[in-house]
């Protein structure tokens, strides 16, 4: 879709580099890569870093999966900022809030959709939601968690959008809230845990498990909403560039 877009820069110098300079560039980069490989092979790996620290403190984190423990407990500051980055990008791309805008999800029943596709979606979307819920829950024990779950759920929304009948709109208040709820809950937990334990984002050990689950659940909602919003906004803009809302 995007590769068909033409940019004025491309029209002026379509060919880019000449063949000789391409070969030269390729040679220089190959040498650079070889040097990097030799450097990696010839150096010994650093000592196991924080792995031992994480495994000895895992029982205080509230979860059994070390990656989730690092993401949501030991280094939860990173995750908080990451959700903030996602929200900032979504707010930059989406048109401003509008209370009179279309609802979050509107269905156009008249649009012709292949019965095979419609039947597939009837199975695929609920399955994606189910898998998303499973991934969220299993994140406490094994690989999985909010991001994986959100990616699968957003994928279901992408499938609905591409099929054509469903249209997501992110200007209503409810849709806006779904974008923000993960960050809001994370910040609330940060503030409350700061008041209780004296250190921001240091959860009380006895309550760490369900606090992490609470944050992860709402973060899944927000991340899925933001990823889907990014896709639908770009999709709408590329399909009908004149109808884009004022940013």
């Amino acid at each position, binding site marked *: 879709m995007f590769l068909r877009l033409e940019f004025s820069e491309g029209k002026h110098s379509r060919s880019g580099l000449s063949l000789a300079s391409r070969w030269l*560039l390729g040679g220089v980069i190959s040498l650079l890569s070889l040097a*990097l490989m030799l450097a990696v092979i010839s150096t010994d790996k650093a000592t196991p870093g924080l*792995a031992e620290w994480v495994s000895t403190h895992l029982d205080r984190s509230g979860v059994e999966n070390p990656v989730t423990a690092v993401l949501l407990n030991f280094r939860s500051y990173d995750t908080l900022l*990451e959700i903030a980055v996602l929200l900032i990008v979504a707010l930059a791309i989406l048109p401003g809030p509008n209370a009179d805008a279309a609802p979050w999800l509107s269905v156009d029943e008249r649009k012709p959709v292949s019965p095979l596709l419609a039947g597939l979606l009837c199975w695929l979307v609920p399955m994606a939601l189910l898998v998303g819920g499973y991934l969220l829950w299993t994140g406490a024990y094994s690989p999985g968690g909010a*991001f994986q779950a959100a990616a699968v759920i957003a994928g279901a929304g992408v499938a609905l959008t591409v099929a054509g009948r469903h249209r997501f709109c992110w200007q209503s208040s409810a849709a806006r809230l779904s974008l923000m709820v993960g960050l809001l809950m994370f910040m609330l937990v940060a503030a409350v845990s700061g008041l209780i334990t004296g250190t921001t984002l240091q959860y009380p050990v006895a309550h760490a498990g369900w606090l992490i689950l609470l944050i992860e659940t709402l973060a899944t909602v927000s991340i899925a909403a933001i990823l889907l919003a990014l896709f639908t906004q770009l999709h709408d803009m590329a399909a009908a560039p004149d109808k884009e809302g004022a940013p």
Partner: protein
Amino acid sequence: MTQDLIYTLSGIVLFGIGVFGVIASVHIIRKLIATNIIGIGVFMVFLASARHGEITDPVPHAMVLTGIVVAVAGTALCLWLALKIHLSDKRGQGVSS
């Protein structure tokens, strides 16, 4: 050991391919894809460095997971900017500027 090495070397190859793409290609979207390939190469090297024999360090894994999501967000922002450039080019063709 060999598994880590395969991952690390492939990551460096991807990094090289990405750098070539960023410099040699003209189209903005191609440059964006090449930037993503560089990112994937760096993630692979970083992930492979987390393994120390039997112990796996979870901290790089968590950081790469964070990095992937931020990379997706950055890619979306770049795509949006590219669309804006494309649209302003199209409008600018009628007006002389």
